């Protein structure tokens, strides 16, 4: 067997390697250049959403800094630790913003933030990320439709029955739009579970800025 083919493949391999290394250098450079900016963009976007659902009159603290890490919870649909943002007025708890996930959207998870007032009424809900069908299921986005405002002010005091927390098609109190029922069904269910979570963990959620321990969250 001659060594020519071996040499040729080694040379081609080396050539490919050089390009791979060059490419990696360019990418590393760009990544480092844009990293801080990307983190800031994501935070800004989140803050913007939080500001939409937490009334400015209800807090005077720095919401983004007053956080609590909540371990992954079945009730919130989260499979990794999530952040809770606490709004306080003159030191007194007023609103908590919980990150929650509806696992059963039409095409996968729907990530949301849910703001709950201290008296267990919803201040508002916003969808952070979803993959629902454009033009059909995406009316859960505030930018596309006001549907999500149905949750503003909703509470167990207003909708007393468990069955009320469903879309109208299933006998509940929440409207939906023809063409997409699975999406709002998932959203309503997740919001309701989040409200339950809040009612069960209210005191811990507003407690000092220490992580919620595993035991407390398991209940």
């Amino acid at each position, binding site marked *: 067997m001659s060594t020519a083919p071996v040499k040729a493949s080694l040379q*081609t391999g080396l050539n490919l390697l050089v390009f791979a290394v060059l490419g990696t250098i360019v990418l590393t450079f760009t990544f480092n250049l844009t990293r801080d900016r990307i983190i800031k963009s994501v935070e800004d976007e989140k803050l913007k959403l939080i500001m939409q659902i937490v009334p400015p009159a209800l807090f005077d603290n720095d919401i983004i800094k007053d956080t609590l890490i909540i371990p992954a919870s079945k009730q919130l649909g989260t499979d990794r630790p999530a952040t809770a943002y606490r709004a306080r007025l003159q030191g007194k708890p007023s609103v908590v913003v919980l990150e929650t996930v509806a696992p059963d959207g039409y095409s996968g998870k729907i990530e949301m933030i849910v703001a709950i007032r201290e008296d267990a009424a919803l201040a508002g809900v916003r969808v952070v990320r979803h993959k629902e069908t*454009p033009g059909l299921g995406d009316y859960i986005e505030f930018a596309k439709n006001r549907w999500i405002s149905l949750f503003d002010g909703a509470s167990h005091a207003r909708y007393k029955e468990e069955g009320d927390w469903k879309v109208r098609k299933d006998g509940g109190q929440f409207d939906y739009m023809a063409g997409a029922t699975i999406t709002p069904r998932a959203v309503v269910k997740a919001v309701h579970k989040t409200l339950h979570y809040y009612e069960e963990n209210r005191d811990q959620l507003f407690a000092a800025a220490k992580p919620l321990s595993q035991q407390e969250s398991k209940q």
Partner: protein
Amino acid sequence: MKTQQFKEILHNGVWKQNAGVVQLLGLCPLLAVSNSVVNGISLGLATAFVMAMSGAAIAPIRSYVPNEIRIPVFILIIAVLVTVVQYAMNAYMYGLYVVLGIFIPLIVTNCIVLARVEAFASKNPVLPSTLDGLAMGLGLAAVLGVLGGMREIIGRGTLLSGIDLALGDAAKNWVIHVIPDYQGFLLAILPPGAFIGLGLLIAGKNWLKLREEHKARGNSANVAPVEGGCAVSHGN
């Protein structure tokens, strides 16, 4: 580079060999994101940028790349450029980045990019290659923009919706409500609208070409069948 060549490359890319309506390459993003003008043009410009840069990057190294591994090397370079664009959009145009989502990384698999690199940049000097990539990309962006405009007007009755995602909050008032109080026509927004719209655009382009030929022959000869009317897409 002579002016003549310059003009020819430009004309070829934007009109005669248009990626969207003549070569029918890169249909996947074309059909998926052309549901509004802003989405269409944004992805079109991102693609044009990647194409110009990949032309500029590949032309100077074309003699150093062994023939057997040229495709992997080209893909590698294109992927790096696309990722750079993705990072940049993620950092500076976050809203748009979220809207275009998966279609930004998918520029890598858009076969028009590799097709131009393989057909042109691997055989030509830097300047013409860059221009060729840019012209082809702009041609695609134009089709995406027109198709996006058609679908947006018919589907939602607006134009330029979402412009604030690309240019910041200041542009929020630029949205034009072409048809006030429009209820929307879902078909145009969903994928079928893209196919129907693209079909109409191709038909329009062919009609123009046919008329041109007709004129050139002094209106005497019979109308010839449209050349390339049965072109087959070579990929996505």
